[in-house]
């Protein structure tokens, strides 16, 4: 295994001065659930804070579908702040002055880790659809290999929202002895039919774009930007709530006093979605979007344990804190509560917090003081219990 290097980014850097993080390339193959393996493969990651002498203060943050390893600080590709600056940082609930925070770009991603946009070492061409399908368990397996390489045996906490929360659950199920505590947020132990349906709309939008070229757009010098933007627009609606959209935009018109009787965006909510779509394509790879949404669709933790979710956590000594938000209809409270009940049935130590918010699924990324109080209290008590 090579020493950590600087990751290679497929997109132009908007903020070349920003910290680029690290990447480790593994020669040993990464076996995948699809029955194939990739080798050599790369894991790009960021760390924040410092590991203590006992190596007992490591916190793994798992990112969501369109997130990446740049949790805080300036993002090298977008130039914008990281996606979880409200939760992570000096003095924040996940305090980087106290904890060593690690976040890795998931396998299948497009921010330096091996994925469909990276070069296939066998052909010298981008993988495209030749990249094997990945699962949430594959993502976690890759992270475990990274931690082995970093010499970190135990994680004080694994946390993340949405698909990040799925990885948290998978971590607790796959590596119970390595996970002291787990804080899955706004997530589910299986992707619902409705969520699979939304993902399929997004994938079809990408694949319907003539510039997608059967996934070979990189080799052919095109970009399915329109399709990816539509996928993002549709998905973005699911991250918000009806109330939040109404409060933010209502029926307000954009840059005009009257409706135009044309199909150009009249409403503010339309131009907002257009902006979300067009800014997304500058930082995300369309094929990665296909792969990662598929990984989420395939996630069904109970299925790996004979259909009983509690079995996934049998004998767990990991402490859990599960968080949901009242207006999240993508990963609603009952899905999160189902995890809490399964943990109860497995006699695990579990807290469950439902936070009042009208901001939908995205609430986990936003300024939610109750979330911060719960996370702070939970992490404090876990850290105290192990003397970290």
């Amino acid at each position, binding site marked *: 295994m090579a020493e950590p290097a600087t990751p290679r980014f497929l997109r132009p850097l908007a903020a070349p001065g920003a910290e680029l993080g690290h990447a480790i390339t593994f020669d040993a193959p990464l076996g995948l659930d699809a029955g194939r393996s990739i080798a050599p493969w790369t894991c790009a990651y960021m760390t924040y804070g410092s590991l203590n002498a006992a190596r007992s203060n490591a916190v793994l943050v798992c990112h969501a579908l369109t997130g990446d390893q740049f949790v805080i600080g300036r993002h090298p590709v977008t130039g914008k702040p990281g996606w979880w600056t409200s939760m992570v940082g000096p003095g924040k609930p996940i305090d980087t002055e106290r904890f060593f925070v690690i976040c890795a770009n998931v396998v299948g991603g497009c921010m330096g880790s091996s994925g469909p946009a990276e070069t296939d070492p066998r052909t010298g061409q981008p993988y495209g659809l030749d990249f094997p399908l990945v699962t949430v368990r594959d993502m976690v397996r890759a992270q475990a290999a990274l931690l082995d390489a970093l010499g970190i045996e135990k994680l004080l906490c694994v946390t993340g929202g949405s698909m990040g929360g799925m990885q948290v659950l998978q971590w607790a199920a796959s590596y119970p002895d390595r996970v002291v505590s787990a804080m899955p947020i706004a997530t589910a132990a299986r992707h619902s039919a409705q969520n699979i349906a939304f993902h399929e709309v997004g994938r079809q939008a990408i694949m319907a774009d003539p510039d997608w070229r059967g996934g070979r757009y990189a080799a052919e010098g095109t970009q399915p930007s329109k399709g990816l933007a539509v996928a993002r627009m549709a998905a973005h609606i699911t991250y918000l709530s009806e109330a939040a959209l109404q409060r933010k935009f209502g029926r307000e018109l954009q840059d005009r006093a009257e409706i135009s009787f044309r199909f150009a965006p009249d409403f503010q909510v339309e131009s907002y979605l257009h902006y979300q779509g067009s800014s997304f394509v500058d930082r995300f790879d369309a094929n990665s979007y296909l792969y990662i949404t598929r990984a989420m669709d395939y996630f069904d933790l109970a299925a790996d344990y004979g259909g009983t979710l509690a079995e996934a956590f049998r004998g767990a000594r990991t402490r859990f804190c599960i968080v949901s938000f009242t207006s999240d209809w993508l990963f609603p409270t009952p899905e999160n509560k189902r995890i809490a009940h399964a943990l*109860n*049935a497995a006699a695990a*130590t579990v807290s469950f*917090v439902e936070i009042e918010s009208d901001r939908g699924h995205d609430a986990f990324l936003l300024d939610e003081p109750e979330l911060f109080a*719960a996370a702070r209290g939970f992490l404090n008590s876990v850290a105290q219990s192990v003397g970290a």
Partner: protein
Amino acid sequence: MARSLRPDLAAIAEMIPEGARVLDVGCGDGQLLEHLKTTRQVDGHGLELSQQNVNACVARGLAVIQGDADADLHEYPSQVFDVVILSQTIQATRNPRAVLDHLLRIGRRTAVSLPNFGHWRVRLSLALNGRMPRTRALDYPWYDTPNIHLCTIADFTALAAEAGADIERALALRADGRTHPMRSDAWGPNSFAEGAIFLLKPRQPL
């Protein structure tokens, strides 16, 4: 801990063995759980209806789940807790008998504290005023109260018998906050105790 423990909670705490695995149903803001954790090193868990209270518990590092005793207890496996606690909560449940059955199933012991509606002042208030009594502990009008299943000490001991529970210990709670052991079938406490605390054990182990 700065706050002093409510008298019935202090009496319950006395009944909990060191290091026990405890479930506090209706744990409020976690006062008892925190006390048990620090003084008796228990493995404490809580179930609480109010989200605000749950959040307060989690912020204090307690393992508490938002949920409803009436709806969620069936999710708990049998005999996993050494002691299950139900303090000043049974009178607010929709189905006290079902809740008690679950507690007896989930825990090897069940500690219950309840206000005594048989207290002479309650009786006198109803007799003299002809209106539903309002007490210090239960100061709600009849039409707007969470306490929908009030009972007397005698009522509860009858329910415990019906549910197949043995009463291992019974304490009368006096107005000044002191507790003293009582015979659960005695006439005196049913009229003179403000409340009672019982430690129950299922008659036949499940």
